[in-house]
């Protein structure tokens, strides 16, 4: 079976449960020996999907506000972004919207966006109605699911949702290193580089 590597980056406010979701996702799955992790910051998990294997290369990001401007380095080349908010914090949903906007503007073309409304075990103190999230996700064509890292709810489903959205294989276009094309050649696919 063909293995397909998919880079996934995690975005969202600090404390919404990004790390918890990934840890839960990979926890009972030991391919650590084959592809070592970088602490809880970089982890991998391979799951079957149709007649392919999807190997998720999951990149954590620092949630602190001061590091926001570094995020483009992390999401460049990503096949998917998991954007997490805390259903008990309206603010975190607001931040999520900002991430979506940034990805639309500067992220890789065709990036799959998956929205996770985490801590659904605490729905009694919920601030963000599920419907808001669903409507929003629909408007941007994103996968959405409410999860609980604590109780392992919908974690697998979140990533399955991503797998389903990944378009069929086609040769990856390599970015142009800022070369100048003279002879009416196509302009560089990625107009700008962030570094």
């Amino acid at each position: 079976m063909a293995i397909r590597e998919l880079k996934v980056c995690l975005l969202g406010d600090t404390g919404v449960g990004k790390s918890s979701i990934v840890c839960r996702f990979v926890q009972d799955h030991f391919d650590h020996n084959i592809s070592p992790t970088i602490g809880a910051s970089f982890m991998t998990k391979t799951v079957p999907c149709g007649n392919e294997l999807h190997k998720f290369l999951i990149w954590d990001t620092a949630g602190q506000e001061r590091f926001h401007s570094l995020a483009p380095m992390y999401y460049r080349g990503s096949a998917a972004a998991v954007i997490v908010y805390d259903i008990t914090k309206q603010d975190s949903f607001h931040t999520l919207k900002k991430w979506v906007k940034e990805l639309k503007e500067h992220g890789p073309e065709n990036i799959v966006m998956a929205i996770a409304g985490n801590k659904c075990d605490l729905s009694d103190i919920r601030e963000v109605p599920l419907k808001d999230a669903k409507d929003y996700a629909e408007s941007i064509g994103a996968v959405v699911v409410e999860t609980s890292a604590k109780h392992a709810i919908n974690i697998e489903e979140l990533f399955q949702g991503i797998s389903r959205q990944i378009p069929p294989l086609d040769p990856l276009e390599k970015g142009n290193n800022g070369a100048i094309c003279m002879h009416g050649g196509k302009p560089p696919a990625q107009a700008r580089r962030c570094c």
Partner: protein
Amino acid sequence: MCSLEEMTLLRLEEAFLAMLAHVGSSILQPLLLAGPEHSEPWARECLCLLQQLHRSSEQLQEVTEQSLQSLQKRLHQPCTAGLESLLMLGSADRILQVYMEYIESYTSCMVVQVFQQVAKRKSRYWRVQFGLLQKHLPGMSFEGPVDAVLAQALRQPLVQHLQQCVLLLLQLRDGLGKSHPAQELVTQAITLYGNLQSFLQQALDQATATQALWHSLSSRLKDALCTPTRRLLQDSQDVPMTATPLRAERVLLFDDALVLLQGPAVHTFDLRLLWVRPRRHECTFCVLTPEEEFSLSARDPLGRAVWQWKVSRAVSQALRGKKDFPVLGAGPAPSEPPACRSVAYTFSAEGRLCQATYEGEWCLARPHGKGTLKWPDGRHHVGNFRWGLEHGFGIYLVPKATEDQFDCYKCHWQEGSMCGYGICEYGSEEVYKGYFRAGLRHGFGVLDSAPQAPQPFRYTGHWEQDQRSGYGVQEDSSRGERYIGEWQANQRHGLGVVVTQAGVCYQGTFQADKMVGPGILLSEDDSMYEGTFTRDLTFEGKGKITFPNGFTLEGSFSSGAGRGLYTQSVLDTAALPPDPSSTHKRQLGVGALPVESRWRGVYTPFWDFAHAGCPGELQEALLGFQVQSSRELRRSQERGSPEDAAGGTEAFLEDLLRPRQPAALRRHLGEALSAAWHPLGKLLRTLMLTFQATYAGIGANKHLQGLAQEEVKQHARELWAAYRGLLQVALQHKGQALEDEDAETRDQRVHGLMLPLVLPSFYSELFTLYLLLHEREDGLYSQGISSLSVFPDTKLLELLDVHKHLWPLKDLRLTSNQRSSLVRDKCFLSATECLQKIITTVDPREKLEVLEKTYLEIEATVSRVLGREHKLPMDDLLPLLVYVVSRARIQHLGAEIHLIRDMMDPVHTGGRYDFLLTALESCYQHIQKEDVRLHRLPGHWDLRDLR
């Protein structure tokens, strides 16, 4: 106790000596005095021959006297002197030598009829002399013509003496008894004297025949052919022989030459340069000489056999330069003359070699082996030849019009023309080092102008038919500019990039050395001009300037009468300021000069060699001379065989098959790439040359980084393919086939194996380009680093929002008057030191491993502090990493990061190495930020507190 035979021998020697003395005084001395008239043309020669004969006669007397003395000594002291003390027995060889010399001198006189000439005059005088001599030479008739008597008197004593010696020695042997120790000695002497008799007889017969021949020939022919030492060995009048296609009516075989007489024409062929080849036809054989080839046909097989035998023997004898002993064809020589010989010869036939002299080894009538060829016009070739043509390594000098000036080619040759690697030092002091084909510069090569030339240049690139053609780099140091691009017929033609000393560089299309149409010009302040301009960098015609701030000026430009620039154009200030890093990093040439075709010619000789199956004889031509010297070196060390030439390629092909495991393969490739005698090593060295020619010096321009980095990767790909090419040949030699390689495996080998091995060879130039490209960011980063370095460890950790529970306060060892809050460069020291090692390696993979170890050090420190294993999430890791990076203070970190990223194996994309590199890069970015650089840090920090 001395035998009767010895007594008789003694008497014999006495008598012989007396006879020689009488002949000497009565005939030889008067002959010298009464020599032929000086007025006659050949008088000098006669006199010389007579003097020679006189000297030989004196030597004969001398040696006879010594022989006599040895006999007398034994007579008196038979006990102390054994038989071997007799000169006749113990030193028979010496006696033989003297006798043979005398015979030579005598027959030479005979052949040119010295005695007849002398006897023409003073016959009266001679009759008187004969009368005196008569009683001393018993048994000799003094009747007949004077010349005959003279000749006989000089010959008879020797003939008689030899006969008697043999008889007496036979008796001596019989008297000794079978077991006598001297038995063998005497037997040897008998054989020797017997042989000497045969030699004498043959010499006399040849002399008589030769004399008769000269007598029978016209004086013109005689003058052309006759020399005193030449002897006739065979004459077609005796055993009929005809030559075709030369149609000679007479064939004469002398001891030094074969002569064909054809009407008035005389063809003389030096026997040393004459080869006999058998023919199918039983009456015919073939003769090869440097410039003629003909058949000799006899009437019958016997006649053919006689002639062929005689010619072959005569050739052998002539090559030895010494008469066969005792007769022609006898002696130690092999039955056939050797096919390979070493002789000098001057060609006379019209053509390439007319008047040229070849001195050296021959085989079957053609220069073959080592030799020197000199033309009368001063051209000169020293080197190897094969079947008459220059082949293999050779040095060729061509004189120029001016005196003392030569074009000197040190090159490999193939069938008469230069082919393969060579160096030419021209009379003009230009120097070319590179490949030739069919005698012309072709393929890849470097041409340097004379050091003192008014416009010095160096061209590194491709050649076709002696002209710059294809991709090449030319540096014009007087203009301070370097052209990198396409050539045709010695002119810039096609796409090219020009970099200048001043730092300005441009890209454009050239035709016949001139730029045509619009180009792109990048100036040092990062503004860009797109449009038409001249070689002197004056804007002319339509164009558009994009300033670093994003403003554009579009319209038409021209240079005015003065030095100013005139323009009618529109200034657009509406554009947003562009990302400075993108304007700063514009790259020239990428895409326009496709990397796959750039240095094709470097690989062509290699692939020609590989496709030919790596023949040993082509190896030197591919590698140049190093191989020769290194092989000579090896040869002297292990007294190798001359067949080594084939062993060279066999050896490395054999080596290729050995390593299978990745580590062994890596080692093997590493050795091959650094070996002077290995084709891969040669390729890499040539590529280094091209890389330096392009990117060192003026070429160290940030706008060429793109060209350079893709070139390095391409070289790794090509070298891997080259390795596979050699492997295929090696397997073919074993009758096996090379398994195909899918694209994925290939990429893996190229990046995982080959690139790390070749990168060091290009690293210095390449890194310089990265350095220049990232100069600006690296500057900001340095400011950031130095501003962070003022903070003590704990304050920096706090500043970077590292959770307090992760602070490794245990690492702080304090002296009594220190406060922990003021300690610097102690926390995470192991990680910091580890990260610093990143600059000590070249291999991107090793650099990434350093980075990974740095992470592990951080994790280990954190786990130690917490007292449990801790997997760091990014929220914690990133601040810690910023801390470690700022403490490691690595110079040019931006250049490092980008070089690693560009050279990194693409399989790592998205993986943990990529993640770590991205993390490092984000720290680098973070440190450049304004608030870090300019101390605009969270308010509760007052810097004055810290100092």
